[in-house]
Each structure stands twice: as structure tokens, then as C-alpha cells.
């Protein structure tokens, strides 16, 4: 062990970071070399001097830090709560959306009569498309009316209104509102009119509406439901209804 290596390792030696063998070699050299020994003494003196330079924390710091950490802990807990609350809010929001969607659907679901009006219009359109206006093509009410006997459990009003400009074209069976119904077909100029009749609970109803460009008039009376549908203009159709009513319930 020489002075150079000792000089190199003296700090690690002082810090007890050297292995046993190296430490013993340096120890031996320090015993023999006054210069290195002095250097080592200087180093130890420095270490001792520096060792007293510990800065103690001010007394209030412990309190301050503890308080800050506890606040942070509460903040974390609160943010946990908040996130749970957020989840809660999100869940309720989803529930509300689903519920209101249901409600909107319920509300916006067309009323029974409107649904039926669609059926009526569809039936009217079908009868024209399929060229299936009448099962019993006749302008004679006394031919048409009996035709329904045995086919349905009610007797529909059949009026010949040719003299009023509404020619009876015929009658047929149709299926509406989950039941077989009587359909009577009239014609005014180039316009066909479907007149549906069937027994129903509804009473004292009168309704006019438009569907897909067709005019629909519905009324119920004395346990019977009546539907009129045509592309005929509304006022003429109204006239037709009045005519029917005046003839049927004289």
C-alpha cells in the first residue's frame, strides 16, 4: 500500500466502505506514514466538525406538516366520495334517460284511435292497390247488405246514395282492430270512399284527421264504430258522412 492508493481510498476508508483486507492495508500504511496519517486526521476532524451542522426543524413544522397531510388525506377521501357521487349521478342520469325515453315513447305513442286510423288508411290503400274494392260488387244496397249475413256478427248500414252523387260500388269483408269488419265502398267522381263499420265499446266519438294525404272521419254511436277514408276533399267527405248519418239514423 503506497501513499497514492491510500490518498485515493482514504475517504472510502473513513466512511467504512472498504472491504476488510483493504481497510487493514490502509491501517498499516497510516501507522507507517506520518503524511498520510496527518491527512487522515484532517479528514476525521472535518467529519467531526461537519457532523454538528445538523439543522433541527423548527418546533411548529411537525404540526404544520401533520396538518397538511391530514388535510390531503381528507381531500383524498372527499375526492373518493365525490367520485362515488359522480358514479351515482351518472347512474341516475342513465336511469333518467331510459325512463324519459320510455315516457316519451309512451307519450309519443300514437293514441289508440290514431293507430286505428293508420290501419284504416292502410286498408283503404290496399283495397285500391289490389283492385280488391269489393267482394260483392253491387250498387244495390239490397244485394250488398244481405251479403254480410253469416259473415259477420252484425249488420252494417248500407245506403245507396247514388242520387246524392255517392254511388255504392259494393261491399267486402276486411280485418281491422283485430276483428272482421264490414267495408262498404262508394265512389264520387274518380274518388273511392271506404266506409268501415264494426261494433265497439266506444261511444259518442267524433274525429277528423288526415293521414298520408287521405282524409279520415271517425265516429262512434250506439255501440258501433264507423270509419270513413278517402282522398276526397274534406268538405265533400263531411257531407257524405252527414248524408250517411241522416239516412241511417233517421
Amino acid at each position, binding site marked *: 500500500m503506497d501513499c497514492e492508493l491510500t490518498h485515493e481510498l482514504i475517504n472510502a476508508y473513513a*466512511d467504512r466502505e472498504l472491504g476488510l483486507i483493504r481497510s487493514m492495508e490502509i491501517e498499516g500504511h497510516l501507522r507507517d506514514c506520518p503524511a498520510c496519517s496527518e491527512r487522515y486526521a*484532517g479528514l476525521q476532524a472535518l467529519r467531526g466538525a*461537519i457532523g*454538528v451542522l445538523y439543522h433541527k*426543524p423548527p418546533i411548529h*413544522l411537525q404540526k404544520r406538516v401533520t396538518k397538511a397531510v391530514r388535510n390531503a388525506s381528507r381531500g383524498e377521501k372527499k375526492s*373518493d366520495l365525490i367520485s362515488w357521487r359522480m358514479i351515482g349521478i351518472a347512474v341516475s342520469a342513465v336511469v333518467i334517460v331510459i325512463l324519459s325515453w320510455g315516457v316519451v315513447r309512451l307519450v309519443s305513442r300514437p293514441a289508440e284511435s290514431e293507430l286505428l286510423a293508420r290501419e284504416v288508411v292502410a286498408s283503404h290503400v290496399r283495397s285500391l292497390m289490389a283492385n280488391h274494392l269489393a267482394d260483392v260488387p253491387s250498387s244495390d244496397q239490397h244485394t250488398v247488405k244481405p251479403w254480410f249475413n253469416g259473415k259477420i256478427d252484425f249488420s252494417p248500414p248500407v245506403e245507396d246514395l247514388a242520387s246524392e252523387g255517392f254511388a255504392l260500388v259494393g261491399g267486402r269483408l276486411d280485418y281491422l282492430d283485430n276483428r272482421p269488419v264490414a267495408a262498404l265502398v262508394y265512389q264520387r267522381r274518380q274518388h273511392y270512399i271506404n266506409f268501415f263499420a264494426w261494433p265497439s265499446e266506444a261511444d259518442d266519438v267524433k274525429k277528423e284527421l288526415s293521414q298520408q294525404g287521405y282524409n279520415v272521419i271517425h265516429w262512434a254511436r250506439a255501440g258501433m264504430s264507423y270509419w270513413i277514408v278517402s282522398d276526397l276533399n274534406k268538405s265533400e267527405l263531411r257531407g257524405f258522412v252527414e248524408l250517411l248519418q241522416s239516412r241511417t239514423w233517421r
Partner: protein
Amino acid sequence: MEERSKLEQFEERILPHLAAAYNLARWLTRDERDAEDVVQEAYLRAFRFFGGFRGGDGRAWLLTIVRNTCYTWLQQNRSHEFAASDDEMQQVESDAPSPEASLIVSADSKLLAQALEELPVEFREAIVLRELEGLSYKEIADLADIPLGTVMSRLARARKRLQQSIARLMGREV
């Protein structure tokens, strides 16, 4: 970690090292007020990261956070001085003989503190961790994220500089 026990564990394992935290922060910032602020900030960071604390030496773990908090603080508040330390680090210690042990022993603590404060921050840090906290080379290497050899050479150079500046300061005073 359950929140309540997290606080309890933290207070039990990390809070007792407040003195070490303050001492390091005080030497690195060289200001009492700043040291307090840095310590509080470091403790809050430590609490946030406490979930990642895998047991072991709570003091070394905390001091790593204090050190990093200090360096962030220095970069933000003393960037000029902080940047200069690199150049200072490159300075080579003079070959002047070390002062005698008796001279150092007679130096008062105010002068010693001045000598230590004048060291570049990396040297100061090595001295504080070694001489005041008694950390091993390995612990310092881990804490400062530097090789073991660098710890050894930094300590040697730091001590050399300290001795020289003590001699210089005492020469002035005498």
C-alpha cells in the same frame, strides 16, 4: 390501501423522519422558510405516492422525495444558481495541502456552515447525506440516482473543497 390506515401508516412510518427531511431541505435550499415549504410539499407528495412505498427504509424513501422536491424548487426559484453548479463541479480542487486537523477543530460552526453552503449543490448533498444522515455510499447512489463510484469521488472532492474553504475562511478571519 384503505384510506384511514393509509394515513395511520404514513404517520407511523414517514412522519418520524421529519428532522432528516428538514435538514436536507435546509442545506439544499439554504433558507429556513424555503426549507419548510419544500418539506411540506415533499410530505404531500410522499403521501400521494405512499401507495408505491414498498416498505423498507422510510427515511431513504422520504429523502429521495425531499431531494427531488428540492431540485424542482431550485430549478424554479434559483435556476441561475442551479445552472452554475455544473461549472463549479468541473473545477479541480487545488493541490494545496489540507489544513491541519487542529485548524478545522478550532473553526466555529458558523464558519463551517458557510463553507458547506458554498459547495455546489451536488457536493453539498453528498456531504449532508453522508455526514449528517449517515447514509452508505449505496444508499446515496440510489437516492441521487448516480453510480457508486461517483458517490465516492464526489465525497472526496467535496471534503477537499470544504477543507480548503475552511482554511481560506479562517485565513480571512484571522
